C-alpha cells in the first residue's frame, strides 16, 4: 500500500499494463517527455521509449483513428485526449468507427482501445475546458464509458479497461487528480459495469459518479446529522451502467436522487432517472429528484460557474424533497 494521488494511481496502472503486455502503447499530445498535461503518462517515455509513448500533433481525429486501426491489428492503444471538451473533434472516429467496427464487420475485428481524457468543471476553465461529456456518448451503442472517483478505483479500472476488448472512453475528472488514498502497488483490477455502494443507508439512494460522488458523500454526512440515512452509489461505469445495484438499492430505500455534473436535459441523469422510474415504479415513494447542471455552457467567472453547477446544498435539498410526501 502506498498513498497515491489519482494521477499517480493512473500512472501506476499504465506502467503495469505496459510492462505486462508489449502491445500496449500510449499516444497523444505531449504524453512523451512531458508526461502529459496532467502528468498521467510521466516516466513512460523514459522506460518504454518513443516507439510506445508517442507524441502526436494536434490531430485528435488521427489520434483516435490511429488507435482504432492499431487495435484492428491486435495492438492495445491507450489514447489521451488532453481535455474531454476536444472529443468533439474526434467524435466521428469514436461514434461511427470505434463503436461500430466490431458489430458492422460481424465480429471480425475488435476495437480494443482506451481513450483517456480529463473532464469536469470548477476551476474557471471556461466553456471549452470544463465540460462533462458522458451525455454526448450515452446514445452510442457499442461504446463503454468508465469513470473512476477514487485513486484505488482509477488504477483498477484503468488496468481492467486496457485488458477489456471493447472501446472504452475513460473519464478522469480534473478535480480528483490530486486526491489521495492508499493504493496497492501490485496489479489488480476493478470490474467494469459494476457500481459500488460507497455508503449504506436506508432512507434514500443517491446515485452519482466522479466529483459528484464526493459531493454526494459530503451531503450524506450532513444528512446523517439530521437523522436522514442516505445510501450513496458510485456508478463507476456510466455506459452501460449497473442497473441491478441501483434498482436493488432503490427497492430498499424507496427514494432516489440522481446527481450529475452535466446539464440536466438529455444527459446521463435522464437515463438513470428514467430507468429507476420505470423499473422501480412500485417501490418509489416520491418522484426521483435530479441534481444536475443548468442548461447553459460553462461560464468562465468562478461565481457564475458555481451557480450553474450542482453542489452539496442542492443535493441535500433534493433529498429533502424526496422525503416530503409526493
Amino acid at each position, binding site marked *: 500500500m502506498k498513498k497515491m494521488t489519482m494521477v499517480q494511481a493512473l500512472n501506476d496502472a499504465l506502467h503495469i499494463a505496459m510492462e505486462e503486455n508489449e502491445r500496449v*502503447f500510449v499516444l497523444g499530445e505531449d504524453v512523451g517527455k512531458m508526461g502529459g498535461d496532467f502528468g498521467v503518462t510521466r516516466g513512460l517515455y523514459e522506460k518504454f521509449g518513443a*516507439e*510506445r509513448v*508517442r507524441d*502526436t*500533433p494536434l*490531430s485528435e*481525429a*488521427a489520434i*483516435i*483513428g*490511429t*488507435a*482504432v*486501426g*492499431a*487495435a*484492428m*491489428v*491486435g*495492438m492495445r*492503444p491507450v489514447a489521451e485526449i488532453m481535455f474531454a471538451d476536444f472529443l468533439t473533434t474526434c467524435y*466521428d*472516429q469514436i461514434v*461511427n*468507427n470505434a463503436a461500430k*467496427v*466490431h*458489430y*458492422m*464487420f*460481424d*465480429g*471480425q*475485428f*475488435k476495437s*480494443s482501445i482506451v481513450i483517456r481524457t480529463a473532464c469536469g468543471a470548477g476551476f474557471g476553465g471556461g466553456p471549452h475546458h470544463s465540460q462533462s461529456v458522458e451525455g454526448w456518448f450515452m446514445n452510442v*451503442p*457499442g461504446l*463503454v464509458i468508465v469513470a473512476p472517483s477514487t485513486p484505488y478505483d482509477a488504477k483498477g479500472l484503468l488496468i481492467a479497461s486496457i485488458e*477489456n*476488448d*471493447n472501446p472504452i472512453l475513460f473519464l478522469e475528472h480534473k478535480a480528483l487528480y490530486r486526491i489521495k488514498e492508499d493504493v496497492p502497488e501490485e496489479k489488480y483490477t476493478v470490474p467494469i*459495469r459494476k457500481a459500488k455502494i460507497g455508503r449504506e443507508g436506508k432512507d434514500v439512494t443517491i446515485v452519482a459518479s466522479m466529483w459528484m460522488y464526493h459531493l454526494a458523500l459530503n451531503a450524506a454526512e450532513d444528512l446523517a446529522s439530521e437523522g436522514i440515512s442516505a445510501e450513496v452509489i458510485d456508478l463507476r461505469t456510466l455506459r*452501460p451502467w449497473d442497473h441491478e445495484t441501483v434498482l436493488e438499492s432503490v427497492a430498499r430505500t424507496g427514494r432516489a436522487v440522481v446527481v450529475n455534473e452535466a446539464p440536466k436535459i438529455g444527459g446521463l441523469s435522464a437515463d438513470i432517472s428514467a430507468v429507476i422510474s420505470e423499473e422501480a415504479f412500485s417501490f418509489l415513494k416520491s418522484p426521483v429528484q435530479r441534481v444536475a447542471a443548468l442548461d447553459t455552457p460553462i461560464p468562465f467567472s468562478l461565481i457564475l460557474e458555481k451557480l450553474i453547477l450542482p453542489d452539496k446544498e442542492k443535493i441535500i435539498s433534493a433529498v429533502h424533497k424526496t422525503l416530503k410526501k409526493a
Partner: protein
Amino acid sequence: MGEIETGKILAMYRDMCIIRSFEFALEREFKKGNVPGMLHTGVGQEALLTAIAHSIRKSDGFFPDHRCHGLLVLAGTPGEKIMAELFGKATGVCSGKGGSLHSADPSVGNFGDNAVEGSFMVTALGVGLGWKMQGKDSVVAVMVGDGTSGRGEWHESLNLAATWKLPILYCCVNNGYAISTPVGESHATADLYEFAKAYKIPSVQVDGNDLLAAYEATQKAVAHIRAGNGPYFVEYKTWRWQGLFSGEFRPPEEVRYYKEEHDPIQMTRKLILDKNIADEAHLTKIEQEVNARIEDWVNFAMQSPLPNPEKATANVYVGWEVEKA
C-alpha cells in the same frame, strides 16, 4: 514484353472483366430489387483497381471505398461471399450486417469500408503503425475519391503518415466528380497529387485507365513503401460510368470519350490484340468464363438464406449480450 508479363497481362485482363461483370450483374439485380440500400459501382475504374490488387500481397491490407466490390473479390474473398453480402444474406462475408459499404475480410487484409467518406484515412494510420511496431513489412492501401479529398482527415492522415513514415499507399481515385460536383470546383486544384506533395511524400499522377501505367506506378510505390521509406501517394485519373440516380449529368462528349475511346477494358483488350498476347477467341473465352462465374455467384446469393435473427444483437460488445427487447 517478356513471357511473365504476358501471362500477367492476361491475368489482369481477366480480373478487370471480373470487376465489370460483377458490377453489371449487381446493377441488374439492384434494379430488380434484390440488392437493398444504395449501390455505387466501379465500372470504368477496373484498370486501377486491378493494378492495386496485383501490387499488394495477402499479408498487406487495404481500406476499400464504395466503388471497390471488384477489389474485394480480387483480394481473395470468394466472390459469392461478397455477392451474398450485398444481397444481405447469411452467407455474406459479414453475414449481411455490412452490405456494400461495409464488407470486411481480415483473412485477405480487407479492413472494410467506412461509409463516412475519408474517415478511414486516419484509421489506416493505426494499421500501418501497428504493423510497423510488430516488425512486419506489410503495406496498407487506402482508397480516396477525389471528392473525399475535401475532408480534414486528409490532412491529419498525410501529415502523420509522413511524420511517422508509416507504410501507407494512398490510392487517390480521381474520377472527376463527387456525386455531381467537379473536383476542380470544390478544391484548390483538380490535380490532387499536388496537395500530397506538400507533405514531402512522393506523389504521382497516372492515367488510371491505362492498365500498364497504373500497374507500374503502383508497383513502384509499393516497393518504396515496403523498403521502409514511408508513405506514397498515387493519383489515378479515371472516370466512373455511373452517373446520378437521376441519370447522366456530364457533357456528352466526355461521356463518349470515356465510354468509347478511353474505356480501360477496351484499351487493355486492344493492347493484348495489338501485341499478339492473345487472340480474339481467347479473350472472348475469358469473358464468357468470367460472366458465367459471376452468374453462379448471383445464384448463390439469391439462394442463400437470410441472416439468423440472432445476428441483430450479436457482437455489439465483446463479452456482453445486449437486451433483446
